């Protein structure tokens, strides 16, 4: 074995097995804790884009599968929430890009299910969910940056700073994007003739 090979063998030597097992166990616990703490928030992020319960759940599961595959990096992460949101965000955007079309399987029942409690009746609920679906369809017509900012701002758990981290920009930029998005959305609503 040459000197170079000896050195490479030394560098490539795996960590001790006991150490690895211990790491695996603590990693599993860490991942389980992450699932318990962030799965709902991640679901909301995914749902804000897909607007489909099954797809959103699938995206969340895919997110944690990626975490499992890259579990060695868990120790390097400073902010798990932002990291996980970025993963699920990329997953849903990637899927949407592949689908090429807006969600045709958008489920009005999903909208109806998440409406705030205290809605007067089933008819009113159905009307509201249809109207919300139309407004969210208009959100999809906004420019990419504005759309991303306003969709993430809809997720209650995320602060402006976290949204800025996910989208790799500044807080002030996020604020101005959200403002522009709302302004353009109002213009679109006016143009579409949706009654005030």
């Amino acid at each position: 074995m040459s000197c170079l090979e000896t050195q490479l063998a030394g560098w490539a030597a795996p960590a001790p097995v006991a150490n690895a097992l211990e790491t695996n166990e603590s990693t599993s616990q860490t991942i389980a804790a992450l699932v318990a703490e962030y799965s709902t928030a991640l679901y909301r992020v995914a749902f804000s884009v897909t607007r489909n319960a099954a797809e959103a759940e699938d995206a969340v599961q895919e997110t944690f599968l990626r975490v499992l595959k890259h579990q060695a990096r868990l120790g390097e992460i400073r902010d798990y929430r932002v990291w996980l949101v970025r993963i699920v965000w990329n997953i849903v955007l990637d899927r949407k890009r592949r689908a090429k079309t807006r969600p045709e399987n958008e489920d009005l029942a999903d909208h109806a299910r998440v409406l705030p409690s205290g809605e007067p009746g089933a008819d009113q609920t159905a009307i509201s969910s249809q109207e919300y679906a139309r407004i969210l369809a208009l959100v999809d017509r906004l420019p990419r940056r504005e759309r991303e900012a306003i969709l993430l701002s809809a997720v209650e758990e995320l602060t402006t700073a976290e949204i800025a981290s996910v989208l790799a920009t500044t807080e002030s930029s996020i604020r101005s994007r959200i403002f522009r998005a709302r302004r353009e959305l109002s213009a679109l609503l006016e143009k579409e003739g949706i009654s005030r």
Partner: protein
Amino acid sequence: MNAELEPWKERIDAALRSAGSADPAPGLEGRILTRLAAERAAMEAHPARMGWFARMPRYSAPVLGVATASLVCAVIIVGSVDHSRVRHPGHVAPPVLVLPGHGLGAASAVHPAEPATAPVAAGPASRGRSVRHFSHPRARIAPNAKKATGVAVPAPTTNPQ
């Protein structure tokens, strides 16, 4: 501007809230953990082909990268040198610069000539040169200067005194 937004504000907020506050179906965590457990079992049963690479210490990947890059650079340099030798086989004598016995440097070597012994007079077609008068330090054009035809030049200045 805010007046524009106002009529729609509540509806937009409500629609966004409906998208951003959706609750997952009950048992989401359990389903995720079950899938993770299945995936972990599959990974242990069939370790990935690149498993040895993943088990490498963190610093070994950059080291291997640098080593590979160095090797590639060395191959490129050796290859280009060999290529140059093939294109120019044998020894070609470099050009020899023969310096004359006298002269002021490389210019005299390229154009060997005797140094001028007297100032060179301007030719008949050369342009007029300004003449500096020490009594009047301002430059003036000499009255007998030769001008090329067709070139507009000011008339010679004459001292009115």
